[in-house]
């Protein structure tokens, strides 16, 4: 057995899970899909006296339309469901494309959107998608429910503004204007590996004039980043300027998969491709 010993609670309700986290003063940890947590347990990089399993809590999974033309995605929704959901494909084809890059089938069968956001890997796709689409992350804790804008959620690598006793229950995405174009570009050494860098973009036009552009970058910064300066450069001076602005806006790090300089260059290339694709698709 690789993980260190721990106690295990299979929570039947959110109230029970919140109470268990609170009773441990935040020392207990949640487990859902476990696809990032269990590797860390096996390496003994994570240790907690108690793991609270939320997989059995009813009502935490599934994808539904909300009143503002967008979608509400339950925290326990598995990646495979996102990948194959017609609602997701119709509302956010950019998510559908992103899912092709998320790990491998066996991981997507088990991993959850709530887990991916809470884990906050800066190279992961779904955190970047959440900042791209101005998602709101809904969490419940002792003081009740809280809605956190994706832009305020990711603070540092593997660090969010979630409190240790809070549980993500759902993600809400506002609807995109009809005819919104999109692009999603990622480079990794092997399909399904962590991104060396990636860029997602959406673009809205009115009578051929650009009315809205959004750019999010991942794998090339300490957090998933909404690149506001690159967006401004796109609005004012076009795609090449946006790619240049993005290179200056990010702060990539060196690791085995690539140097910071390489990532900076790559992010610019991917930004250009994503914006080209979004321009092409914007009606």
């Amino acid at each position, binding site marked *: *057995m*690789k993980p260190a*010993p721990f106690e*295990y609670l299979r929570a039947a309700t959110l109230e029970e899970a919140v109470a268990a986290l609170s009773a441990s003063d935040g020392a207990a940890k949640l*487990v859902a899909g476990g696809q990032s947590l269990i590797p860390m347990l*096996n390496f003994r990089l994570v240790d907690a006296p108690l*793991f609270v399993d939320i997989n059995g809590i009813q009502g935490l999974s599934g994808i539904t339309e909300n009143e503002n033309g967008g979608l509400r995605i339950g925290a326990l929704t598995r990646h495979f469901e996102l990948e194959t959901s017609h609602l997701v494909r119709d509302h956010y084809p950019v998510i559908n494309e992103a899912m092709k890059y998320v790990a491998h089938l*066996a991981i997507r069968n*088990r991993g959850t959107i709530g887990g991916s956001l809470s884990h906050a890997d800066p190279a992961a796709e779904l955190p970047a998608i959440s900042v791209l689409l101005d998602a709101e992350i809904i969490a419940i804790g002792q003081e009740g429910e809280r809605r956190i804008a994706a832009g305020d959620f990711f603070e540092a690598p593997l660090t969010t503004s979630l409190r240790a006793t809070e549980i993500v229950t759902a993600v809400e995405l506002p609807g995109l204007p009809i005819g919104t174009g999109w692009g999603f570009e990622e480079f990794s050494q092997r399909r399904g590996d962590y991104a060396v860098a990636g860029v997602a973009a959406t673009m809205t036009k009115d009578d051929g004039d650009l009315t809205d552009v959004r750019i999010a970058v991942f794998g090339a910064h300490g957090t998933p980043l909404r690149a506001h300066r690159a967006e401004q450069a796109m609005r004012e001076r076009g795609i090449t300027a946006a790619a240049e602005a993005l290179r200056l806006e990010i702060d990539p790090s060196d690791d085995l998969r690539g140097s910071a300089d390489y990532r900076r260059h790559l992010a610019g290339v991917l930004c250009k491709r994503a914006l080209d694709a979004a321009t092409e698709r914007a009606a």
Partner: protein
Amino acid sequence: MTEKVSISITVNGTQHCVEVEPRLLLADFIRENLDLTGTHVGCEHGICGACTILINGDSVRSCLTLAVQADGAEIETVESLGDAEELGPLQQAFRDHHALQCGFCTPGMLMTATDMLRKYPLESDDDIRDGLSGNICRCTGYQHIVAAVRAARDERDRG
């Protein structure tokens, strides 16, 4: 010593009601407790794919699942596909196409391919390679594994 948890797991059609430590990985439960050593353990952190099994029909890394999390589940391991006397169709395709050398990755390849063949059209070799990208083989160079899955896809599509 942590408190043991009672679980009931059905593996290849046989139900097992046992008490396990929460930290016991499903891969170790299958190998050590049930003596089903067809499921191989390679990296033990979800990279190599050798330990892939099916939980309620979905392929899952058994090294990234706790045995307690499989309580109530139906599990299929490579032993469910067939045996030496009577190979299953996918196993036969692997044999026909020389899709294994040392055999270490093969159980994971077979279980991954089983799920891929159920879920995806696998129209091109690129699709097959994408599907197999989570399983590492250090012998074959993958060509013959792709050929075996292609043959299994053709057989599936012929109905």
